[in-house]
């Protein structure tokens, strides 16, 4: 049984993941620092976010070495959150529309470089 001696892995793998997390964090900060806008902003933010999250869960939290039963039980349920995101995004858009249509508020159009 794999867990008789706990999760014992070479130190090297932790150091590599540590370094990788630093590099990817630096990249995600660069997205803001270099003021990337439009399509690439959310795309890059999401890519770097999922890479970081994936390595933290898989290596630091040892999920990659666990049995599939545990992986499914822990990583499966959060998928339900996608439904919540979808519903709340619909609802958010609907509320914004009602505010514009019935309260006469104007929609904010993002401008290129804001004040300051």
């Amino acid at each position, binding site marked *: 049984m794999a*867990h008789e001696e706990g999760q014992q892995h070479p130190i090297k793998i932790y150091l590599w993941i540590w370094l990788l*997390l630093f590099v990817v964090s630096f990249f995600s900060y660069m997205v803001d620092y270099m003021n990337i806008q439009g399509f690439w902003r959310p795309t890059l933010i999401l890519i770097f*976010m999922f890479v970081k999250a994936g390595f933290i869960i898989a290596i630091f939290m*040892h999920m990659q070495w666990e*049995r*599939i*039963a545990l992986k499914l039980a822990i990583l499966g349920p959060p998928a339900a*959150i996608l439904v*919540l995101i979808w519903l*709340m995004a619909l609802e958010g858009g609907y509320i914004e529309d009602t505010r514009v249509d019935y309260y006469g508020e104007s929609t904010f159009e993002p401008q290129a470089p804001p004040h300051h």
Partner: protein
Amino acid sequence: MSEVVMEHAAEAPGLEGVVSDFSRDKQVFGVPWGKAMMWIFLLSDTFIFSCFLVSYMAVRISTTDPWPVPSEVFALSFGGDPIPLILIAIMTFILITSSGTMAMAVNMGYRRDKNKTFWLMVATAILGASFVGMQAFEWTKLIVEEGVRPWSNPMGAAQFGSSFFMITGFHGLHVSAGVIYLMWVAIRVKRGIYERRGGNYEIVEIAGLYWHFVDLVWVFIFAFFYLW
């Protein structure tokens, strides 16, 4: 560890293993119960943080006022021009560093190196405490200098303040609790309590799971609240 688990030492791999893990008359997860409980707690915590982040998304979509630009709100000047988001970037790096020291502490624990485990855990706790300190600085600056309140702020949409204080406050609370938890386990490591129990350092890995989760949540907060 019960004998039932040991009996089925040779477990089936793949999906067949999933079926047999769940259907056989034994503990489902081949991990110590404390670890399974920590994972289930973290799963519930995932939903709590998701609720905060999703409600933040909903109010940000639904507001007709301009959303304050985090890049400017959290810019900091060291004498010269303000650097966008610099404090948040430093906090991110501190948390990742602490995750690294924690991973090493877990590793040293399983190598039964009492002293290294202790000092790495102390280092992790110190980094965590400095993260909370920076967050206190950030909150003070936002409340006192920028005039951000949970119900209003001078920069734009009123929902910015409530989202910010709820999300980062709840995360900061987790970090603070983590610092206390880590110090408690570290002191017990130092006193040789786990060494006397046959060198069983599982508890360090369980504490580590919690700490990595706190870092994991920050990854999502950083992406959705600060960068988006």
